[in-house]
């Protein structure tokens, strides 16, 4: 894996993306009237000052070490990271993809149809359980949501663009 200043490249990504967002935020706020932009400009300027420092602090360089010590009091050791082995990237992507599958299904087919499909597929493919268990889970959760939200709370659940 490619590394930069002693740290894998991907470790810089969140701070770098946030820096780009902060620049957009700062520039956008310049377009508002003086009263409305005062607070956003202060926040934007703070982010623009802190984020480059964070990028440097991530690196394993002498300046990075100094920033880490300076801004994080010496007695406060960072929380112990999980000692469990890092899971492969594929696993992270799969888990997130299933969440997006749920959103897409909710939007297309409606909430009551999306939930059983999501639960069944998640239990079967992510959890590696048998189809009968996946289907029992799907029906139970779908039914519970219907009883709780539609019957008890009288909430009209989103029907989806296909059935609306």
């Amino acid at each position, binding site marked *: 894996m490619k590394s930069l200043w002693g740290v894998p490249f991907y*470790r810089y990504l*969140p701070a770098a993306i*946030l820096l780009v967002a*902060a620049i957009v*935020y700062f520039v*956008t*706020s310049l377009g*508002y*009237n003086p*009263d*409305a932009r005062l*607070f*956003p400009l202060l*926040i*934007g300027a*703070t*982010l623009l000052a*802190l*984020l480059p*420092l*964070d990028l440097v602090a991530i690196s394993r360089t002498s300046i990075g070490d100094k920033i880490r010590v300076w*801004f*994080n*009091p*010496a*007695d*406060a*050791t*960072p*929380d112990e*990271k999980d000692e469990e082995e890092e899971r492969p990237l594929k*696993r992270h992507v799969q*888990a*997130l993809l*299933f*969440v*997006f599958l*749920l*959103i897409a299904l*909710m*939007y297309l087919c409606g*909430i009551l149809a999306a*939930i059983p499909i*999501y*639960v069944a597929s*998640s*239990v079967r493919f*992510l*959890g*590696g*359980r048998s189809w009968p*268990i996946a289907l029992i*889970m799907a029906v139970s*959760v779908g039914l*519970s*949501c219907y009883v709780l*939200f539609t019957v008890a*709370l009288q909430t009209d*659940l*989103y029907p989806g663009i296909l059935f609306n």
Partner: protein
Amino acid sequence: MADWVAGFQSLLGFEEILYLSLGIAIGLFVGVLPGIGGTTALVLLTPFTFSLEPVQAFALAAGIMGSTSMGGVVTAILLNTPGQTANAVTCLDGFPLAQQGKAGYAIGAAASSNALGGMIGIISLLAIMPLAGQLVMAFGPPEFFLLAVLGLVLVATTARGRMFRALITTAFGLALATVGFSDVTGQERFTFGNEYLWDGVHLAPALIGLFAVAEMVQLTVKGGSVAKAGAPAAITGMFDGLMASIRNWGTLLRGSVIGTVVGIIPGIGGTVASFLSYGITVQSAKDPETFGKGNIKGIIATEAAINAKDGSMLIPTLAFGIPGSAEMAVFMTILVLHGMQPGPLMMMQNQVEIYGLIWALTAACVISAAVGIFLARPLAKLTRIDVQLLAPVIIAVGFVGSYAIDLSIENVLITAIFGVIGYVMIKFDYPRLPLVIAIVLGGIAERNFHQSMMMSDGDLSMFLGRAVSVVLLVSIALSLLAPNLKPLRRAAAMRRAAGGERFKRKIGG
């Protein structure tokens, strides 16, 4: 005294007890469900209360208000998923305890501090009532602004070892708080033409994403169960937990006082109370490094503050007609529906109803804690379930709950976006709590800062000319310096020791 007794007697009817019990059951139930808070439940039940007698309606409302926090505790400790925003802080030490197999101990402590904190808050309410006016009047826009800043600083400094990143996420949260119509100028900001964002980033869907979804995705990736392998399966230590809040009576009392004071100040709410209480407890502790890893004092301080504020929050609502929170705003609607106009006149004319409400709130605090303890054992078994079965259920209910808040499909999208943000924050070690508190306090801070500047024609020195402001400024400075003072002192002591050693060697040589 006669009104006090009459208030108690008014609650003793069969129907009043029934509605109080119903309120407690609803409060516990919605408290357990992430994203559906007491406010939502109150809103849904407001039309229903119209057909009830005032005391019955108050019993129902008090049951909900006094018990949602206890419901939220269960999911916060067992699943790291706060049922209520304020319970987010309970996760910090509650979840690590659950992972160590001490869920019973944590829930016991939370329940007893919840009940005792609630009672202390109500006793304070009775004691403060005559002085309430002066206290609320002492807080103007400069004080509200500084109180918001103090909340932000405390949150950032409690992220031990990650203070720098906590400051970044605080600023990020403040940036998110500026989305929508400006309270000051009415100008639309950062909405990029999207109507949904006019009201800003909706907090509840964002919270469900940041906590419930992010946590469940992480658990899905890890596999196993919520409780770490090897942790004892039995829920033991419940009684120890109950006694823990009495053993740590100082923490309990401090949390209750903080909750009471914050509750009196309108617009601040339980989230700030819990953060403030937790932050001050961490800063004043001899072992601050143990917080966030399962220190029972973290739970006691938080839960006592959350429930103590419920009583004191009634002061501005009843005495001045200023709702202290969204929940109180809905409750005011219920009062008006029953022909009562909150304000000084109500304090004189409706004493019996007010005392009835206070009694109902007290009963709700105690009963919900007892029911919470009773239900903790079966609920604690949730931590043993394989996450591959549990996570899809939590994620699905979280998303439906997010939609149900205001029947908006955009809420679902916000939950998903914040779910990804939360997951990235977990993976890259950015604290999530400062982000939440900054979103909550951003609007308050900006609005009051602008009002302060208008009051003083842009003169910043006004913050130094008011007694409460000065106290708050000093508190902010101390909060920023306190985490750095200990290491500096330790480093100086080490330098002195090293110098002494060199001196000895020199003499010896």
